[in-house]
C-alpha cells in the first residue's frame, strides 16, 4: 500500500492551484452573486488541459482518469473557485460518450469537451422522479429515422452555457412496471425545447432550468449506446459524479478552513488570538479531521473506478463524508468569523450554500445511507 502521492499528482495539484489562484474566492463569489458563469477560469483551465484531463487522448484530452479529474475539482475548489459543472460535463457526459458513444458522437463532442470550449450537461431529474429514477416519465418514441421526446426535467444546471444535453428518457417499461431508459444527445437549441430558469437561493455562478420537451425531434443517431440500456449506462457516470462531488466538497472544506485559520490567528478580542480559545479551535480541528478522512475515501473511490473495480460503496461513502465535512468546515469557519462570517466582504456564505446543496445533490444523504444500509450492511430495503 502506498499513501504517498506520485510526483505527477503533486505537480498536477500545484499547477491547477496556480492557474486558479489569480481567480480565487473573490472572483468566484462575485460571479456567484451575479449568477455569471466563470468563463475566464474555465477557459484558463481548459487551455492548460485540466478541464479535459480525463477525456481520452485520441480526442484531444489528457488521457487521465477520475483520480486526475477529482484532483482538478478539489484544487479549483480549494482555491475558492469550485467548478460545479465539471460534475456533469466531464464526470458524466464526457465519460458516458467516451464509453458508449458511436465514433461519430465521440468525434463530434469529445474534442470540445477536452479543450473546455464545449459543454454537454446532464438531465435526469424530473418533478415526479428525483431520487426514484424508476419513475422517470419523460419519454422518447421512435418515428421513422427520428426520436420524438416529450416530458419535463427540472433543476438542470448549466443549460444556458451548454451546446447539448445528455438526456435520460424512458423508451420502454419492463414487466414489473419499471422504466427502461435510454440516453440521447439533444442540442440545447432544439425546436420544441423550452428552457425556463428555475431560481434558487443558493448563490451559484451556474443557473438551473426547468426543461419542457414538446415533441422535440432528434435523429436516430442521437441515441447514445444501446436502447433500453440507459440505466446501466447512466450508472457508469453516477459514481464519477459522486466522486467529483466529493472532491469538490473536500476543496470547499480546505478553502473554508484556510480562511478560518488565518482569521483565528489574526483576530484578537481578549488580548490574544481567538484561535487560542478551544471553543474556536476544536470545531476547526474536528472539521479538518473529517475533511482528511473524506479526502482519503474520495481518492480510494476514484482509484477503484479507474481500475474498473466496484466503486459504488466507496463513491457513496466519499460523497456522504465529504458533504458533511464541507458543511462542518463552512459552519465552523463562519462561527470563527463572528459577524464577519455572514458578511459579503468575507464571502463565506456562498460556500456554505454550495456545501448544503451538495448534501442534497447529486444524490441526497438519505439515499447514500440507504445504499450503505442495504448493500453494505445487508439490512432490509425500505423501498
Amino acid at each position, binding site marked *: 500500500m502506498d499513501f504517498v502521492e506520485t510526483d*505527477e499528482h503533486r505537480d498536477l495539484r500545484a499547477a491547477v492551484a496556480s492557474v486558479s489562484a489569480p481567480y480565487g474566492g473573490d472572483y468566484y463569489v462575485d460571479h456567484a452573486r451575479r449568477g455569471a458563469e466563470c468563463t475566464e477560469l474555465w477557459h484558463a483551465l481548459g487551455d*492548460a488541459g485540466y478541464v479535459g484531463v480525463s477525456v481520452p487522448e485520441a480526442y484531444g484530452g489528457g488521457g487521465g482518469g477520475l483520480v486526475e479529474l477529482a484532483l482538478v475539482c478539489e484544487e479549483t475548489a480549494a482555491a475558492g473557485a469550485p467548478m460545479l459543472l465539471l460534475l456533469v460535463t466531464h464526470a458524466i457526459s464526457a465519460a458516458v460518450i467516451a464509453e458508449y458513444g458511436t465514433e461519430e458522437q465521440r468525434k463530434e463532442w469529445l474534442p470540445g469537451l477536452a479543450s473546455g470550449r464545449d459543454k454537454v450537461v446532464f438531465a435526469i431529474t424530473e418533478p415526479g422522479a428525483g431520487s426514484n429514477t424508476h419513475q422517470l416519465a419523460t419519454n422518447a418514441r421512435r418515428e421513422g429515422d427520428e426520436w420524438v421526446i416529450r416530458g419535463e426535467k427540472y433543476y438542470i444546471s448549466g443549460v444556458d452555457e451548454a451546446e447539448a444535453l445528455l438526456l435520460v428518457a424512458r423508451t420502454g417499461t419492463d414487466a414489473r412496471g419499471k422504466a427502461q431508459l435510454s440516453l440521447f444527445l439533444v442540442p440545447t437549441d432544439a425546436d420544441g425545447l423550452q428552457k425556463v430558469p428555475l431560481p434558487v437561493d443558493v448563490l451559484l455562478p451556474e443557473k438551473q432550468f426547468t426543461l419542457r420537451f414538446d415533441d422535440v425531434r432528434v435523429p436516430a443517431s442521437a441515441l447514445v449506446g444501446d436502447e433500453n440500456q440507459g440505466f446501466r449506462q447512466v450508472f457508469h457516470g453516477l459514481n464519477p459524479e459522486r466522486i467529483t462531488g466529493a472532491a469538490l466538497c473536500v476543496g470547499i472544506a480546505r478553502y473554508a478552513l484556510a480562511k478560518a485559520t488565518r482569521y483565528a490567528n489574526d483576530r484578537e478580542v481578549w488580548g490574544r488570538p481567538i484561535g487560542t480559545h478551544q471553543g474556536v479551535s476544536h470545531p476547526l480541528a474536528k472539521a479538518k479531521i473529517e475533511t482528511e478522512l473524506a479526502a482519503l475515501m474520495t481518492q480510494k473511490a476514484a482509484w477503484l473506478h479507474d481500475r474498473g473495480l466496484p466503486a459504488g460503496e466507496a463513491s457513496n461513502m466519499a460523497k456522504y463524508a465529504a458533504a458533511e465535512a464541507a458543511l462542518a468546515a463552512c459552519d465552523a469557519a463562519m462561527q470563527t468569523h463572528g459577524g464577519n462570517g455572514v458578511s459579503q466582504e468575507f464571502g463565506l456564505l456562498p460556500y456554505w450554500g454550495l456545501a448544503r446543496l451538495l448534501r442534497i445533490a447529486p444524490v441526497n444523504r438519505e439515499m447514500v445511507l440507504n445504499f450503505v444500509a442495504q448493500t453494505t450492511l445487508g439490512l432490509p430495503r425500505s423501498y
Partner: protein
Amino acid sequence: MNIVVLIKQVPDTWSERKLSDGDKTLDRASSDAVLDEINERAVEEALKIKEAGDAEVTILTAGPDRATDAIRKALSMGADKAVHVNDEAIHGSDAIATAKVLAKAIGTVGDVDLVLAGNEATDGRSGAMAGMLGELLGWPSLTHANELTVENGTAKAKRETDEGTSDLEASLPAVVSVGEKINEPRYPSFKGIMAAKKKPVTTLGIADLGLDASEVGLAGSLVQVDSFAPRPPKSGGQKVEDEGDGGAKIAEYLVGQKLI
C-alpha cells in the same frame, strides 16, 4: 539551436526564509522550495525560441536532491532534458564557485549557442551569475533583458533602466539574463506534467565536471557569510504632516522610493 536554461530552486518567497546558525548558509529545510519565478521566465523565453524555429532546450541546475522538483517543473513546461549537478561538496559555494560549476556543466551539453538565466535569484540576489559565466566561458553576456530576439547567429536584447533603454546585441554563443518583464511564463499542461518524468535527466558530481572539492563549496569560496541578523521588525514608517502640502510630500516620498 542548442539552448541551456539555468534554473535555481529557491525558498518560496511567501514562506519564512532563514539562514542556518551553523555555517550561515541558506537553511533549505526550513521553507518550501520552488522554482524561482524569474527562471520560469527564462524557460518560457527558451520555449518561445524553440517553438518559433528549432531548438533543443536543456535545463541546468546545481542544487540538492529536492531540486529535482524544480527540474521537473521546467521539463513539464516543455524543456527537453536536464542536467542536475548534485554534490554535497558544492554546499556553501559563493557566486564565483557556483559560476565555475555551471560553466563546466554547460560544457557537458555540447555546442551550446545560448545560455539563458534569471537576472537575479530571489534568495542569493547577487545578480552576478550571467556576467560571471560570460567571463568564464569567454562569451558575451547580455544582462537584464526585457526583450530578446535571436536570429542569424545574433542575440538582440532590450534592457530598461531608470535612465532609459539600452539596445544590446551580441553574436552567439552568448549568455543572456532575463528580467521580470520579458514574458508571462506558461502553466505546465497536463500532458507536459505526464511527459516530464520520462525526459532524460543527467545527474553529475563535481568529479564528473573535472573539479576538485577544494575549488567549490565553503572551502573554495572567496566570500563567506560572517554574521547575519534578521531584519528588524517594521518600524512606524515615515509620517507626513499635512501643512497644506501633504499631497506633494507624499508624491515626493514615492518618487524617492522609485514607486512613481
